[in-house]
């Protein structure tokens, strides 16, 4: 952990230096800085103040929506900041500095009061929408109301505000149905102040307001689902055109000023987006320097990766990026015999994580994990409660012995049988499940792989406890990333007993430990950052003692940055390149 911190400090210092030198240079010189393997993980590559040109983005699918109030995709939370400014946002910097929040529309981070149940923000004065009208806190309030309380129209985004804000005496129906009033728990005493009243103390509230749902929307211009076609910008770029499912073009917003915005730049003259492009074509276009960025930020296709990594020149343009996601196996605390902690601990010792890593394509796709919290999440603490030589589990004598010892304690000295669920349309998940099956067999644990389509995995199968019990799903493959990179953002949905649902459940283990529930609740109510962050590590350890989650891999994605892309760095908050300052020399 110390080594990680030290490396991060060096990275931050380097990045800051490069950024400063970039900002101080004048004129339109091209990019500078070195392009080496993994350089953008810790520094700004091609730091440049070059202005002009077109930054082109391609995407292999389509965004759920470009409406900042109707999206849940990480790459859209990253990209939307170019035209939609939330109250606060992540610091545009590589390394751990990128996990820090910076005021954006607001003049500072939130001021908590009432023990963390009330949060107050002041926004900058003189801000304007792209149509020239002034931005006020009423526009922020309206944006939250439409995105969180009109889910039948804008259904894609999260509803954390509806979950944590105090509701009206008669439930608020959202601005489309309730045209006479708004949500009483958001107050706007004047045009630059906004106050939030929460049901409970919530120390991570600054992270909630960093999501694009707090980007202002002028009520007069909102036409529901159709707003995506005429989004009114508050950022440095505005929409010139938008075609659903095809793409969009953004140009400079003349009503945005650099002076009002400490985090963004307006380098490129134009930004183009093309959707539904073949991933291999995107990769080839990146390598041929035809496009600036792969918008999806989920990495290259497998065959493109192999080509690029094998070519020494191309390899210097590659970053193996920590995505912030954890691949793991959830062990059911309700399905026998895994309802016995010793049976679960036997599984922890027996799994050969090296073979799991190999099955997914090697270490470029993920580092072997021993904790639930990935290293890129605030509060991560390094520990390993179930160590085996070389992480080989039953392939090492210590792992084999420890697993057999736990099986004896569990009353199943010769092993047991169970099922493992995996998503049929995720080959990597099937490959990992197969490797797990092979390693568990060596200690007498016979596992049958049950495959289910990912579209209904949470609604009907692994995420439906009744189905899990009736189908004897003792183990379930899972991948998880936080909506915001803190311990609470990562752990609450997968460890809190109060988060267990009859359908759409993410706490697949059905862990309902009163002590862990209390630890989570206490930590999120604690406004002392140091104490709170320390608590996440403790909760992680407590859950690992319960052995309900077998961490497999901290996932990584192989990304490519072309020569023409300037100011490129990975922001760990998004697990991909930070789009706020990207420019193009083309």
């Amino acid at each position, binding site marked *: 952990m110390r080594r990680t911190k030290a490396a991060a400090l060096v990275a931050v210092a380097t990045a800051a230096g490069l950024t400063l030198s970039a900002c101080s240079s004048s004129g339109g010189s091209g990019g500078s800085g070195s392009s080496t393997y993994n350089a953008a993980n810790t520094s700004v590559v091609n730091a440049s103040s070059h202005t002009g040109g077109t930054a082109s983005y391609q995407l292999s699918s389509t965004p759920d929506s470009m409406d900042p109030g109707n999206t849940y995709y990480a790459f859209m939370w990253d990209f939307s900041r170019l035209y939609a400014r939330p109250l606060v946002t992540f610091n545009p910097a590589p390394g751990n500095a990128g996990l820090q929040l910076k005021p954006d529309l607001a003049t500072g981070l939130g001021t908590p009061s009432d023990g963390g149940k009330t949060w107050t923000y002041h926004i900058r004065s003189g801000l304007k929408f792209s149509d020239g009208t002034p931005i006020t806190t009423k526009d922020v309030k309206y944006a939250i109301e439409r995105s969180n309380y009109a889910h039948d129209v804008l259904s894609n985004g999260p509803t954390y505000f509806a979950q944590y804000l105090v509701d009206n005496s008669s439930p608020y129906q959202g601005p489309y149905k309730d045209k006479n009033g708004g949500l009483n728990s958001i107050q706007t005493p004047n045009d630059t102040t906004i106050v939030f009243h929460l049901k409970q103390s919530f120390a991570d509230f600054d992270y909630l307001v960093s999501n694009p749902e707090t980007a202002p929307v002028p009520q007069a211009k909102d036409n529901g689902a159709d707003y995506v076609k005429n989004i009114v910008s508050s950022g440095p770029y505005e929409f010139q055109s938008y075609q659903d499912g095809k793409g969009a073009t953004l140009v400079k917003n003349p009503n945005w000023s650099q002076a009002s915005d400490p985090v963004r730049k307006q380098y490129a003259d134009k930004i183009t987006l093309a959707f*539904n492009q073949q991933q291999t074509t995107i990769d080839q276009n990146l390598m041929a320097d035809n496009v600036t960025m792969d918008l999806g930020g989920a990495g290259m296709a497998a065959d493109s990766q192999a080509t690029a990594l094998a070519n020494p020149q191309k390899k210097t343009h590659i970053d193996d990026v920590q995505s912030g996601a954890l691949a793991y196996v959830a062990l059911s605390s309700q399905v026998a015999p895994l309802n016995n902690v010793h049976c679960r601990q036997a599984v922890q010792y027996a799994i050969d994580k090296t073979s799991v890593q190999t099955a997914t394509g090697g270490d470029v796709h993920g580092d072997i994990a021993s904790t639930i919290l990935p290293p890129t999440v605030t509060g991560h603490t390094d520990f390993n409660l179930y160590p085996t030589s070389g992480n080989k589990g039953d392939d090492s004598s210590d792992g084999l012995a420890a697993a057999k010892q736990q099986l004896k304690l569990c009353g199943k000295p010769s092993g047991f049988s169970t099922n493992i669920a995996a998503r049929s349309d995720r080959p990597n998940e099937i490959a990992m499940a197969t490797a797990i099956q092979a390693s568990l067999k060596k200690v007498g644990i016979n596992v049958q792989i049950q495959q289910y389509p990912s579209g209904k995995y949470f609604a009907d199968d692994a995420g439906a406890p009744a189905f899990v019990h009736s189908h004897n799903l003792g183990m379930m493959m899972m991948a998880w990333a936080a909506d915001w990179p803190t311990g609470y953002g990562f752990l609450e949905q997968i460890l809190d007993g109060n988060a267990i649902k009859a359908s759409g459940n993410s706490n697949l283990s059905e862990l309902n430990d009163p002590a862990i529930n209390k630890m989570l609740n206490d930590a999120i109510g604690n406004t002392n950052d140091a104490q709170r962050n320390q608590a996440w590590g403790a909760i992680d350890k407590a859950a690992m003692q319960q052995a309900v989650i077998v961490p497999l891999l901290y996932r990584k994605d192989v990304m490519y940055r072309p020569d023409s892309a300037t100011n490129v760095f990975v922001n760990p908050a998004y697990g991909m390149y930070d789009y706020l300052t990207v420019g193009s020399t083309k």
Partner: protein
Amino acid sequence: MVAYIIRRAFAAVVLLLIVSAVTFGIFFLVPRLAGETTQQLASQYVGRDPSPQAVQSIIHNLGFDKPVYQQYWEFIHGIVAGRTFNDGPTPTHCAVPCFGYSFKSHLPVWPDLTQRIPVTLSLALGAAVIWLVSGVAIGVLSALKRGSIFDRLSMGVALAGVSLPIFFTGLLSMDLFSFQWPIFSNLHYVNFTDNPLMWAKNLVLPWVTLAFLYSALYARLTRAGMLETMSEDYIRTARAKGLPERKVVTRHGLRSALTPIITIFGMDFGLLLGGAVLTETVFSLPGVGQYAVQAITDNDLPKVMAVTTLAAFFIVVANLLVDLLYAVVDPRVRLS
């Protein structure tokens, strides 16, 4: 002639109704018969981690709380009379032909789909010209020079063309001509009205790739047809009358051999207008085919209904045109 067209148009409407009913049934009735509840159906369209209230709102908004026959009736009614939706601060009217709003994006389906027709039309037209000209020409020459090196070579290439899938030839051509030798680099669709030259330049590879498949097929069909026709008695008679060989081939031989070609061309062209799925996917062209793939992937019923109906419409119209053309090409055919 007019009565014939009216009769065929009526039959086309009935056919389209059947297609729409079957598609609607597959996506709405079959899941219900398999035990899927309205909540499970609606939960696909309400984002991650929806509240029960949100699911209930979606059920009501999308009309899942109504009987299936009523949902189908409202869908058909919308196509001929339009519909009004409450998808925002004020009710919005969806004009005729209203195929409804996307379950995913909540945007009207028809304008989105029609924007894609020019892309598919551009692809299909250009490819069709290439494959008709090259396929028929090669087929005729092969038939006339039966057994020659040209015949063997062209039929060998034709066999390869028929056998190789587009996702192979397309990716190969792109790798060669976009990246290894970047003659057609950074392919992307450009509207004909914006820049005709760039429109053509960006479509050359998709045209050639698509035409390679079809021209191979057409060359083999034309060759077979020509060989059969040229051995007919009336060809011998034409030659005996002293007609020049060029006239024998073009007026008597080719005209007869073209009849089955026209039939299959009508079918192929109609199918392509409904979406050249593989070609559009390989070349990332934002056409009807790509739209269809997206609609099916998202299980977005209004989009699936619209694209299926549109594809069926194109096939029906193409068949009607083929039947009308028969009367022109084949003097034995009379429409009544």
